[in-house]
């Protein structure tokens, strides 16, 4: 199990109320400031999410890559579904502390044919998003099929395994609780199917739709379950300090406790603190041992 994993900051996002307009108006101030803050917060990568960017995507991506690279040396995830915008970003990107990473390439023939050659041409990495021709995968096996397809296509195109970041997609616990163990399960077989690849996870989605004050414990617990499943990194809120502590191996006891829950060991709840009890309950919900409800901590 990884005791130290990398983090990608998710905060440079078009859905932000200040950054969205800044992207639209090409106002560099707020964009630079966020890139600086994320860098100071200690993330390893910065995700640049410009959304679908149907109009003016290439110009926007080119501009934002330049703007961000003026203030940080961190490698960037280029996050949009617009293929031309991805290419514009790759063309502009200057590798300082690492390659740019295309976020993301789905296991759909059209997307693979359009994007894999670009990643290869510009010597970039890629997020292999396990989303298939019919949408969300239904279980670990479908995810396994998609990872094999992406791995084969990418390595044939000349992309190195260590430049492939596999994301098996996590669903919100309040709508598709049963999919979470299937997401974790993929990491456990990933190295057999796609040796040498790396991994990532759009972790905040797990708590999407749950009450706001309960999102941190869901995200933190899920990160620990991911680490026990062998994940090497995750895309997170750059300013969530407990997530940093967990990812950087500063919470070894809690991480060990989560491992016990995952292995199905008997746990003497009477010996746990209130905080530990809450983490155990949350892990049990995420692993599907007990059915989710918004009040799971009160049971």
């Amino acid at each position, binding site marked *: 199990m990884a005791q130290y994993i990398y983090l990608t900051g998710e905060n440079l996002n078009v859905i932000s109320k200040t950054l969205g307009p800044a992207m639209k108006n090409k106002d560099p101030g707020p964009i630079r400031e966020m890139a600086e803050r994320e860098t100071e917060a200690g993330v390893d990568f910065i995700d640049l999410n410009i959304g679908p960017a149907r109009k003016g995507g290439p110009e926007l991506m080119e501009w934002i890559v330049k703007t961000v690279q003026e203030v940080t040396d961190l490698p960037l995830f280029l996050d949009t579904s617009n293929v031309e915008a991805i290419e514009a970003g790759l063309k502009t990107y200057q590798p300082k502390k690492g390659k740019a990473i295309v976020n993301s390439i789905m296991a759909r023939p059209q997307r693979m044919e359009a994007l894999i050659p670009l990643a290869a041409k510009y010597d970039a990495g890629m997020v292999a998003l396990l989303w298939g021709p019919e949408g969300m995968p239904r279980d670990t096996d479908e995810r396994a099929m998609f990872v094999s397809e992406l791995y084969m296509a990418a390595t044939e195109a000349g992309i190195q395994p260590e430049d492939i970041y596999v994301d098996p997609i996590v669903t919100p616990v309040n709508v598709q609780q049963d999919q979470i163990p299937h997401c974790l399960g993929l990491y456990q077989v990933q190295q057999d199917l796609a040796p040498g690849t790396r991994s990532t996870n759009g972790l905040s989605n797990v708590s999407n739709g749950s009450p706001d004050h309960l999102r941190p414990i869901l995200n933190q617990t899920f990160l620990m379950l991911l680490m026990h499943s062998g994940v090497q990194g995750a895309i997170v809120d750059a300013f969530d300090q407990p997530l940093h502590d967990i990812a950087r191996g500063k919470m070894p006891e809690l991480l060990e406790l989560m491992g016990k829950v995952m292995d199905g060991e008997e746990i003497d709840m009477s010996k746990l603190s209130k905080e530990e009890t809450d983490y155990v309950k949350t892990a049990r919900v995420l692993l599907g041992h*007990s*059915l*989710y*409800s*918004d*009040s799971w901590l*009160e049971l």
Partner: protein
Amino acid sequence: MAVEIPKVSYTGKIKTIPIGDPSKGILVGGDEAYPFYGFEGALPNAPRIAMDVQDTPPEECAATIRELFSDVWDDPVAWAQKCIQEYGADMIDLELASTDPNGLDRSAEEAAEMVKKVADSIDVPLIVYGTANVEKDSDVLRMVCEVCEGRHLMVGPVQEGNYKKIGAAAIAYKHTVIANTPIDINLAKQLNILLGNLGVPDEQILIDPTTGGLGYGLEYTYSVMERIRMAAMVQQDEKLQLPMICNIGKEVWKTKEAKQTIEEAPELGDPTQRGVLMEAITAQDLLLAGANILILRHPETVKLVRSMIQELMG
């Protein structure tokens, strides 16, 4: 080698809930096996059938329903009697359609008086359904609970938006709440937790998972009920170990197909048989998914479903 029949190992059971006048000892639930799996565990209480009565003459309805009930159309007391005497309903569901704020918007007081009149005239258990308008139901059902103190009604739909007010009245005046959520197992569990936190005892809660009729979401209701029952019986989910109620007549008979005449839809065949079969198939499926109480409208459906229950219960 002898064939070994697989057997489910149950770790939970459905709570037994008394309904109606306690001196009559009518119980629902208590299931210790999946629906009709009497060979795997005890099923002490067969599913029960209620028939629905409208508190005001329906504006639009299928010809067969109009023919059967037009003599009692504007008298819920007589309508209830007819369902019990002629069609053998185990219980009555009074639908308070007249309280709809977008319709007649009858007051909570008037509605409660009507409920009391019907409750006083029958000796089978009485279910009372509002219009699913969160604010209006909150007023109407609270008043119904108060005016009918001691009548042990089942009142619903109690939703996340009004559970506190109706739940408190149900505790104070000893009625059972029908906890209704929009076809979602997580929300069903959550509402039961909230009702429990409020102090409503488990013995006063029924689950209404929201009914989709044949062609109108039946498979979603089926699937959620099946999962609720599995969570209750093999995953020890205590918050879901409660009987389920399905309001079927209302959903089926409001559909276009159930109301169309033979001239309007000749390809769909005899309208009466069509509507009855749509209602019976919905009922049969939801029984298989774990329904403990069904609310039906057409007496022919009642007959069909009752014979199915009798045969399957052995």
